[in-house]
């Protein structure tokens, strides 16, 4: 190794491209995210592939959500393992850093066990319930047909979703937030190329 000073974040050697076709890929991803939010618990597969692997540990679906939905108006909060993904998100989305979870419009989490309490994120206000954090959590696996029973808007009878790698306390904290509705948190669970949404109105029974 030579003695070059390598200022981090200046030479951008770690940067990788985002969507291969930014406009159409973002539109296709938007449609899928919309469908996932409209049908809570339904596992959707990302219809596009990225031009390059996003920086680990940012998953492909999580990266696509960021590239599709985040811009200069959406402060992002990242959990500790995702710190390396900052330059990627800043470069492609132009999104600012949220100094605390409360100020985040999007929060990306890969270490679900270390997730801050849900109530520490932005929950919106009664006048503007949309001014809340959308939580994107990377989980180990998503399986339909068993696990949690989901009911509520967008679900005709019920739907079943099994999530591997989610701490038990999350369900309790989420249930505790239901009394604040319409304030609350929308959660998107991602696993590799797959995603499933748990909007704030969805009721979860274990």
């Amino acid at each position: 190794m030579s003695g070059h000073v390598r200022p981090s974040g200046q030479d951008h050697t770690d940067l990788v491209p985002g969507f291969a076709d930014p406009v159409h890929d973002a539109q296709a991803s938007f449609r899928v995210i919309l469908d996932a939010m409209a049908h809570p618990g339904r596992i959707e597969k990302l219809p596009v592939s990225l031009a390059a692997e996003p920086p680990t540990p940012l998953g492909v679906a999580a990266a696509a959500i960021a590239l599709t939905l985040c811009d200069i108006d959406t402060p992002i909060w990242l959990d500790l393992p995702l710190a390396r993904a900052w330059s990627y998100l800043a470069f492609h989305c132009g999104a600012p850093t949220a100094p605390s979870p409360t100020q985040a419009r999007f929060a990306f989490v890969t270490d679900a066990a270390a997730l801050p309490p849900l109530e520490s994120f932005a929950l919106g206000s009664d006048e503007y319930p949309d001014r809340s954090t959308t939580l994107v959590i990377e989980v180990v696996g998503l399986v339909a047909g068993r696990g949690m029973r989901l009911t509520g808007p967008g679900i005709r009878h019920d739907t079943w979703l099994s999530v591997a790698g989610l701490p038990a306390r999350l369900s309790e904290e989420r249930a505790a937030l239901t009394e604040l509705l319409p304030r609350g948190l929308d959660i998107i669970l991602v696993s590799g190329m797959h995603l499933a949404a748990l909007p704030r109105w969805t009721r979860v029974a274990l």
Partner: protein
Amino acid sequence: MHESGCAALDANTTQTSQNETRRGWLAILAKAELGELEDAWRVLAEKPAYRVLRRIETGLVMVRGRIGGTGQPFNLGEMTITRAAVQLIDGSGRATCAGFGHVAGRAPRKAELVALFDALLQDPARHAAISGALVAPLAEKQTAARLERAAKCAASKVDFLTMVRGE
């Protein structure tokens, strides 16, 4: 084996002075004619492999100014710019230096060339050659053009004498 390092042209220079140096060559490249950059690219030995980090896009930026360099900044108006971000790929397929180009107007190819030369100039092994063959002559030409224009303007300058007004 030579390590194709980026950014750090000299281990002793600080980040700030590196930024200043880079800003200098970016300004010169951005003001160059497309033909000049295209010619330099054509004669460039060992053209690097590269990939586009973000699609080259044209957009608007708000230009802000101050009258006489003092006073309150104001929005002068919007101008069209094109920006490009590329990344060089070395022989082993590893991504190395990233270069950025921001140029006035709708000029995707020019933005791409500026970004490419920016990336190459960050490579210590190639900096001197490109700086000498491209940046220095461009700088000279641009300075000469500016001085000529300034001289022409100076020739037609009118000095207004203002008498001290007695109130």
